[in-house]
């Protein structure tokens, strides 16, 4: 049982299911590797990042719970994780079940039932592991490739599963899929049959608040550094922690709308060059608040001076008149990159006597997701 947290008190709750698959025993490099018949199964192997991504997501979910930041309180957290190699992972001294297709099916069934107890519930599923996309998007459980004649017996059709979940009573449904969506030439020459975890069975419409986000564009790979959380997971965590929040009244709110709108910007922060427009794909309808932070989020700031020649000569300063916080940097040819709380600051550039540039002080608003300022110092 991978249920790591439950709160059965009455009222709407958020139910979380985290599935991470890094270890694929039957694929290349796996502990029980088999000779695979199809090219698409031969090409892929072990992933080191899902274990880190799932752990980081779990900690984020729990930290937000500890700080009462989830707008709908946490009701349950279930985790399935297949790390690379044999054995099971442990979170909080609890042994986690591995993410086999059977275990995923059972966990999904229980999670769906918990989600369906109240239409105000929030359903959150996060998957990290291998994926393929032919016409539909397929996610691979750890037993993918156990049967080399049909490796997709160890996978599920995410596209159809997502559509089937529309019939769940919970009206806020969040699906985050951190996997590749690539297609191989071998896949184009075969008809792949891959069943969903749930068969769409009712002609019902979308839930009121749908956010289904895929880390990669169609035909693209999701990326990570070895032995670290993936770029997408890091960006998602940064977003939930306030990196994509907006101030409403006195609080900083992360909503499904803000997660939809600017996730690529956060991926760009994690990995420059990866945050292009089509990077992260989101299906979304209406916006609802998910997380509430009472203090301003931390935002990355980059300050430069113009003209370019002025920049290496400038002593830079950043003041917040509300908090009296002050940051300084001595002259340096590189851009001044730092992180600070969101707010309105005065940014100053000061030059030594006799320099060709005049001192400048300009107000600048620092708001998520990132902030850049060019201080004009001519004359």
């Amino acid at each position: 049982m991978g249920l790591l947290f439950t709160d059965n008190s009455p009222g709407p709750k958020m139910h979380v299911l985290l599935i991470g698959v890094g270890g694929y025993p039957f694929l290349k490099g796996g502990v029980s590797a088999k000779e695979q018949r199809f090219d698409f199964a031969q090409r892929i192997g072990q992933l080191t990042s899902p274990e880190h991504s799932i752990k980081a997501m779990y900690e984020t979910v729990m930290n937000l719970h500890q700080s009462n930041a989830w707008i709908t309180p946490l009701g349950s957290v279930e985790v399935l994780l297949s790390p690379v190699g044999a054995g099971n992972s442990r979170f909080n001294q609890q042994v986690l079940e591995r993410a086999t297709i059977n275990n995923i099916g059972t966990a999904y069934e229980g999670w769906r039932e918990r989600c369906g107890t109240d239409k105000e519930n929030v359903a959150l599923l996060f998957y990290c592991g291998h994926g393929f996309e032919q016409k539909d998007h397929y996610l691979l459980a750890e037993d993918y490739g156990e049967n080399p004649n049909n490796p997709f017996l160890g996978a599920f059709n995410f596209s159809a599963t997502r559509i089937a979940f529309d019939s769940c009573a919970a009206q806020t449904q969040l699906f985050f899929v951190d996997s590749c969506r690539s297609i191989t030439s071998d896949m184009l020459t075969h008809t792949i049959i891959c069943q969903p975890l749930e068969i769409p069975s009712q002609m019902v419409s979308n839930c009121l608040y749908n956010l289904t986000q895929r880390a990669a564009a169609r035909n693209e790979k999701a990326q990570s550094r070895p032995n670290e959380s993936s770029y997408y997971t890091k960006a998602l965590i940064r977003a939930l922690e306030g990196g994509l929040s907006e101030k409403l009244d006195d609080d900083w709110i992360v909503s499904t709308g803000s997660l939809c709108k600017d996730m690529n910007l956060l991926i760009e922060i994690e990995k420059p060059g990866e945050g292009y427009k089509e990077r992260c794909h989101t299906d979304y309808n209406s916006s609802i608040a998910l997380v509430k932070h009472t203090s301003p989020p931390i935002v990355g700031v980059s300050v430069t001076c113009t003209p370019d020649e002025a920049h290496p000569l400038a002593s830079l300063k950043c003041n917040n008149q509300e908090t009296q916080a002050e940051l300084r940097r001595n002259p340096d040819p590189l851009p001044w990159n730092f992180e600070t709380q969101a707010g309105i600051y005065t940014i100053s550039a000061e030059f030594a006597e006799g320099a060709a540039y005049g001192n400048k002080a300009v107000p600048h608003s620092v708001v998520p997701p990132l902030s850049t300022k060019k201080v004009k110092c001519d004359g």
Partner: protein
Amino acid sequence: MDRGNLLISMFPKGEQLKQLEIFNASLTRIFSEWLDGSSREMKLEQGLYAARLTGLSGHQYEKAFEIKGGSDTSVRLGEDQMNENTADEPINEGFVNDIKNRNDLSERGINLKDIHYFRNARLVREGMVDFKMYPGNDYEVFARRLSERNTNLKINTTGKINPRIWYIYKRSIFMINLPVSESVYCRVQKNKGPEGYVHELSFDLELKNKEAGAILRLMMSGDIERAKTLAGHIGFAENLLYSKINNPSYAALGGYFLLRTNSMQQLHDWPKNLARWFEWLPDGCIIYASQLMRSEKPAVEDIEYWLIEAYQRGIPLYTEGLRLLYEGFTKLYFMEYRKSGIIDRAFKQVQEWMSYADTNNGFTVLRIPLK
């Protein structure tokens, strides 16, 4: 506390709607309004503030400023932050005024060798596309090779049914659905991102009805809250009833917007009319089927009828429609007792359309690999 005067000048100048927001030093929003002028005056207490301007293109411009008691502060917003990719201003170069006028094209330096005309989708010189995949009524289409530069097209779709652009680029052909009864500006740009992974080109349509275009952009970017405030400001839902007669394309957009915002009461019975009156437009059927799905007791037979009708009319004008059509057929396909030859065919076909779709675009854009 002393107060000072603030004068905000907004660029580009003109009568286009823009949303102006003012935030105080703790970044709490203290002012928000959609404006159609180019300046706004107000009095504020002394202190630091930030102003944010959101244009109808969805682009945002921000500036922080300080108000000093008893004095005037002037803030110019948008002026030095505009860039060439901003679609707030009408595109004023590189038009193809009449796609059927070869002389006009020639005068504008467009090489006729690179232009291919299609009628009833029968001919493609540069490669073969299985046009059976794209059922629809008689429409006029054209294709043009992209030069190394970005390209702007102006297309008048008045009097046409299901107008589309076909655009050949490398080993792909792009199909861009256009609204009817419109003067459409289409900006063709190369997308950033790894080759082979992203759609190489983006097609940005600018509509004559700026508000409709803005709502579509905001919806697609995820900024549904801002779209709601704009829709409320311009009485969008009510205008739709009028535009249904004049322009069913806009009416369909309104339908998708009301579905997204779950404003079911405001839909009334016009999705049914839209589906029935405009027999060439798939989107009316999709909106009506979606409305039926949200009824107390959805009648599967009716939903199925209108989804099949939509499929037979062809590719939806809007990406939102294609997505809803795909979801609808996925549900029907897996309901074994509903399965029939046509549902099987339609599901596989719509799946194929989806696999080619640029889901970042509000209008349906397909990238079809040439065989």
